[in-house]
């Protein structure tokens, strides 16, 4: 079959198309975004009429995916690791309802926080929900696992979690495709109360999950993705999970290891394989990308008091992603001397693009707030978070999607006046609307600036769910019409914009300022496409 050169994200996307999905649900978030984008740009997906529009947030995406699974069709739902926090409610409960059509939840974790606010490990969510988890070590495995995950999902009528990390998501390699499977027919669940989690039913469902989950261990024991490689030197055994397996192999150019290795790419932890390596070897080294979940679980499985090395005892760093060198050090291999970065090299942090509308807004906001003590601007997640850096130093918080609005409300409720929210248009529709309703109902005195650049800019310019609707949404929620202002953030409008912001800062109630100007990157892209067409 064809060989394709694909990112890890794209391998999953292509596999999902080839495995016969009828829809994909997602909200953009690095490093997961390219899964949906690949399916959106795929001619095959278009011909197959696969549903592939962005959702407002990860929770709505997850719920829609459960709905598609209800109809018997295959579907995937994709998000970054913190997106699973937003989707946690439907995700955990989906283990109780179970699936009908195959349902895979894909999370892309970001250890080392290349583009994220934390580095949580989604494998914990899989364990928490008691669902099978797949963790590919390379692009081909990622492709193949989508097929296996759908099989397990349908065999046990259960959602399955597929966890990748940044380095796999954004690394390209050749993959071999399989034969394409047809889409499933519409077929509702045999039990039409399967998805009704009334306490009486939920209790039964939980017992059923507890019973079924025993099979997940058996599946993991027999999984082709979990492999035991025996070797003669039993002084140390190595457990390598997902991507860490590659870093281990990198340290042995002939791929011949002196010690036994257990490669783990499917969970729950395959108990008998773990016991085997533990019993046969004098010590254990655990290599895993993310949190030390396997290292911790090991202690509940094994009984003898052998030394286990890993992230908990400092053999590997407790935080950040692994790399060939950190693994090499953990293996106790000799280290080559490397050059140092010359001291004159300075960091080059990301910054707002030249002519970015956020720049003009931050300059106006800073001027408008000059007469107040600093520390009043609650912000959110997007390009505009870069407003925290010099020369703007314009914002004082960034916690999670939508928190700018509700944190400003909490601070206002406590007596901070004025209290300001700065939130992007896509973040506002992701998780800001309900917070605004709280503020309106409580008549909290907050000034909400919605940075409407008419796109989801940070992740590469996806459509924004609220485009063209923001004023109506705010008015519909109950913000007074005369306190919904629209400004255009441009240098020439600076004085006027400062005046509008100042007036609204002094208003005792909820006021909205929509700062609207198209993202310059989107504008340039749109213009060059237009130019190309002509």
């Amino acid at each position, binding site marked *: 079959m064809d060989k394709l050169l694909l990112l890890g994200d794209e391998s999953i996307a292509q596999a999902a198309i080839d495995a016969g999905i009828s829809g994909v649900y997602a909200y953009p978030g690095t490093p997961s975004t390219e899964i949906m984008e690949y399916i959106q740009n795929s001619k095959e997906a278009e011909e197959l009429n696969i549903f592939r529009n962005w959702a407002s947030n990860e929770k709505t995406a997850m719920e829609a995916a459960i709905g598609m699974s209800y109809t018997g069709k295959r579907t995937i739902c994709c998000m970054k690791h913190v997106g699973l926090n937003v989707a946690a409610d439907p995700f955990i409960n989906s283990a109780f309802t179970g699936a009908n059509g195959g349902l895979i939840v894909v999370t892309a974790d970001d250890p080392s926080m290349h583009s994220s606010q934390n580095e949580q490990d989604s494998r914990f969510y899989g364990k928490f929900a008691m669902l099978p988890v797949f963790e590919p070590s390379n692009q081909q495995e990622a492709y193949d696992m989508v097929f296996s995950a759908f099989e397990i999902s349908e065999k046990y009528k259960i959602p399955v979690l597929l966890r990748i990390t940044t380095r796999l998501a954004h690394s*390209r390699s050749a993959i071999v495709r399989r034969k394409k499977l047809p889409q499933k027919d519409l077929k509702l669940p045999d039990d039409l109360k399967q998805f009704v989690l009334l306490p009486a039913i939920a209790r039964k469902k939980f017992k059923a999950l507890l019973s079924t989950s025993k099979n997940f261990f058996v599946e993991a024991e027999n999984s082709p993705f979990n492999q035991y490689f025996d070797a003669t030197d039993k002084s140390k055994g190595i457990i390598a999970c997902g991507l860490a397996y590659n870093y281990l192999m990198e340290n042995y150019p002939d791929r011949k290891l002196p010690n036994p290795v257990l490669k783990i790419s499917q969970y729950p932890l395959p108990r008998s394989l773990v016991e085997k390596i533990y019993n046969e070897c004098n010590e254990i080294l655990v290599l895993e990308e993310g949190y030390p979940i396997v290292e911790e679980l090991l202690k509940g499985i094994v009984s003898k008091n052998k030394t286990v090395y890993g992230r908990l005892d400092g053999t590997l760093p407790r935080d950040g992603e692994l790399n060939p060198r950190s693994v090499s050090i953990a293996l106790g291999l000799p280290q080559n001397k*490397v050059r140092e970065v010359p001291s*004159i090299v300075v960091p*080059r942090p990301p*910054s707002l693009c030249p002519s970015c509308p956020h720049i003009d807004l931050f300059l106006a906001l800073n001027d408008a707030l000059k007469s107040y003590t600093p520390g009043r601007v609650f912000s959110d997640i997007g390009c505009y978070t870069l407003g925290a850096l010099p020369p703007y130093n314009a914002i004082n918080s960034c916690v999670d999607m939508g928190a700018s609005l509700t944190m400003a409300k909490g601070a206002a409720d406590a007596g901070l006046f004025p209290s300001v929210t700065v939130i992007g248009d896509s973040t506002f529709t992701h998780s800001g609307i309900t917070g605004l309703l709280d503020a309106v109902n409580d008549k909290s005195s907050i000034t909400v600036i919605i940075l409407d650049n008419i796109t989801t800019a940070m992740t590469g310019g996806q459509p924004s769910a609220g485009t063209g609707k923001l004023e109506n949404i705010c008015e519909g929620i109950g913000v007074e019409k005369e306190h919904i202002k629209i400004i255009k953030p441009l240098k020439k409008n600076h004085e006027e914009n400062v005046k509008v912001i100042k007036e609204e800062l002094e208003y005792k109630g909820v006021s909205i300022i929509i700062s609207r100007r198209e993202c310059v990157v989107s504008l340039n892209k749109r213009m060059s496409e237009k130019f190309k067409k002509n």
Partner: protein
Amino acid sequence: MKKDIILAGVGGQGILSIAAIIGYAAVETGLFLKQAEVHGMSQRGGEVQSHLRLSSSPIASDLIPEGKANLIISIEPMEALRYLPMLAPDGWLITNTEPFINIPNYPEIDKLMDEINNLPYHIALNADKIAKELNATKSVNMVVLGAASPFLDINYEKMENAIRTIFKRKGNEIVDINIAAMKAGRNYTESVIKK
């Protein structure tokens, strides 16, 4: 055959195009490839890098081990130096000398050049100037790629074909400009090495 390459630059300078061209030519040659990219926040004018690994046998890690890169190819002089710990003792550094200054504390260019010139194996060329002379100001990255091409052990015609394929949808004019830019970079390195 085994080549481990660090591509370096500032977000937007086109290192992913370089990676795509080498990658395409490598796969056409029948080599194994892994290429780790940086997406997301850093692309907003920050430091960006890509690990490109080519080999005649299967590759394990997506990341190059420290001190093992055969080449650093950089579109910006300070960014070239940022990844020095990755470079093998006998590795080559190929860099553009034109600084991209978008931070207030950018170091003195002469001091950066001193560091580069102290390296045993390096090619430093003003790719911006060469591109400008060709009226190809958007192909600075291709000039740098051309300068690195003699070190890649990949058939040069395959590289030209890769440009033709990858830039095809942008039209013949763009294809020709990029091929000319790559050739100019290659000529520079060949003239320097001959000396």
